[in-house]
Each structure stands twice: as C-alpha cells, then as structure tokens.
C-alpha cells in the first residue's frame, strides 16, 4: 500500500509533532517542531513538489523555527515550568483527539478517495515553471497583497517591541519606587 519511505517520514512527522507538545522543556519542543516541519518538507518531496519543499525548509525551518527558539530563549525559563495542567482537561483533550481521528478517518475511508481518483502516479508531476507563471499572472494581485501583509506584520512586530521597551522603562521606575517604599517601611 504505502512505501517504506512514506511510513518513515510519517512516523517522524507525527512523532516529533507529539514531542513538540509534550516535551518537558520548551526549547526541546521548539527543536522538535522544526524537525516535524522538515518531515512535512519530506512529504512535499514525495509529492513531486520540490519547489514547495524548498520554500517550506527556507521559511518554516529557517525562519519560523529560529524565531520561536529566540522567543523561548528571551522568555524566562522559570515561567515555562509552571504549567498548571488539569488532569481532567488532558483526558478530555485526548478523548476529543480520538473522536476527531476516528470520525474523520471513517469519513475518508468511506469516501471515494481510495478509488480511481486517489491513484496519482500515472499523471506527470507539475512543472514549477507553471507555478511561477500562475503566481505572476492569475495570482499577481494576491502576491502584491501578500507582500504588503508581510511588510505590515514586520512593522507591527517592530512597533510592539518598541512600545514594550518604553513600558519596560516605566516598569523599572515603578520597581525602583516600590523598593524605596519598602526601604522606608522597614
């Protein structure tokens, strides 16, 4: 049914996705998430989409994972250990996950996906010159809006970081005032 490479990549992707959520230390979770994204890139290679796979590696593994790791390092580690997890909520989450998996799985197995439509190895793979052509003709407005969105998000992140430094100064002043108050009280 499925070839061994596919099974290996599937196990890698799903396993590291679970580790990303369940690892005790958040930094290991972030690294595990990066490996999971690499697994998705492997799926794209298996689907004869090398362009999307390279984009996935460049953006997800190269940019997003590194950004997450930096954010995890900026956040004080002590705050990350105090995760109050409800046992009941965890059981309910696992039950919900199993319900979603079984119902969706039954739905997909009952659908016609495993029939004639699902066999895609007869058709030739998509040439990525076609992707470039589509991006610059039919999807050109979307591409421009995408660029504006990325610029806007960068400006928003910068604005948030800048305002944060100003409030940080105010917080520092408040802390000094509190210290002075404590000294006066004692």
């Amino acid at each position, binding site marked *: 049914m499925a070839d061994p490479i596919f099974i290996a990549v599937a196990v890698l992707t799903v396993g590291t996705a679970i580790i990303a959520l369940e690892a005790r230390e958040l930094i290991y979770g972030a690294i595990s998430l990066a490996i999971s994204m690499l697994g998705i890139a492997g799926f794209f290679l298996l689907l004869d989409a090398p362009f999307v796979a390279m*984009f996935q590696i460049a953006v997800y593994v190269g940019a*997003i994972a590194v950004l997450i790791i930096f954010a995890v390092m900026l956040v004080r580690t002590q705050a990350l250990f*105090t995760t109050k997890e409800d046992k009941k*909520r965890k059981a309910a989450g696992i039950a919900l996950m199993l319900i979603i998996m079984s119902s969706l799985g039954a739905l997909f197995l009952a659908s016609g996906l*495993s029939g004639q439509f699902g066999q895609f190895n007869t058709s030739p793979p998509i040439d990525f010159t076609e992707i470039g052509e589509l*991006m610059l003709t039919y999807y050109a407005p979307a591409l421009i809006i995408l660029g504006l969105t*990325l610029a806007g998000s960068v400006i928003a992140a910068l604005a948030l970081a800048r305002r944060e430094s100003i409030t940080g100064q105010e917080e520092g002043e408040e802390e000094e005032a509190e210290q002075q108050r404590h000294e006066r009280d004692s």
Partner: protein
Amino acid sequence: MSEILDFVIVSMVLVAIGIYGLVVKRNAIRMLFSIEIIANAANLLLVAFSRGLPNAQGQVVALFSIAIAAAEVAVGLAIIVVIFRARRRLSVDDLSLMRW
C-alpha cells in the same frame, strides 16, 4: 507507491494532535506550536490534492499559506514577548484583560 488517502490520513492525524494541544495546553507558546502543526497539515492537504488532480494552483496557494504563516508567527511571538514582559507569566488563563 502511495496514494492520496495516505497523505490525507497523516494530515488528519496532525490536525487531531494540533487540536489536542490547543485544548489541553495553557502555555501561549505551546498553543502557537499547535497552530503551526494544524497549518502544516493544511499545506500538506493542499499539495497532495494539487498532485492528484493534477493542478498547479494548489501548490501556489500552499506557497501563499506558508508566507502568511511566517507573518502570523512574527506578530504572535511579538505579542507573547510583550505579554511576558508585562505580566511575567505565559499561561493564557491569566490573560483575562479583554474578556468581557
């Protein structure tokens, strides 16, 4: 060789794991991880059906989706770091400032 259904099943499992993380985890960064896992599953479905049809538009939409995810993570992490600087904790149960 594999068929579309295998990729659909892997994508479904990833979505289920992501929903589990969103429901159970109370740490803002871990919830961001879950959102990323779900977005990856959606991209996988897009590319799988783009290969099966075959139609190049699925891959184009997947590329757009990846780029949008990068913007979303940048803003999300900036918000998380700002919240952490202000509140000194990251549990979403404490972030009830804007809850009616």
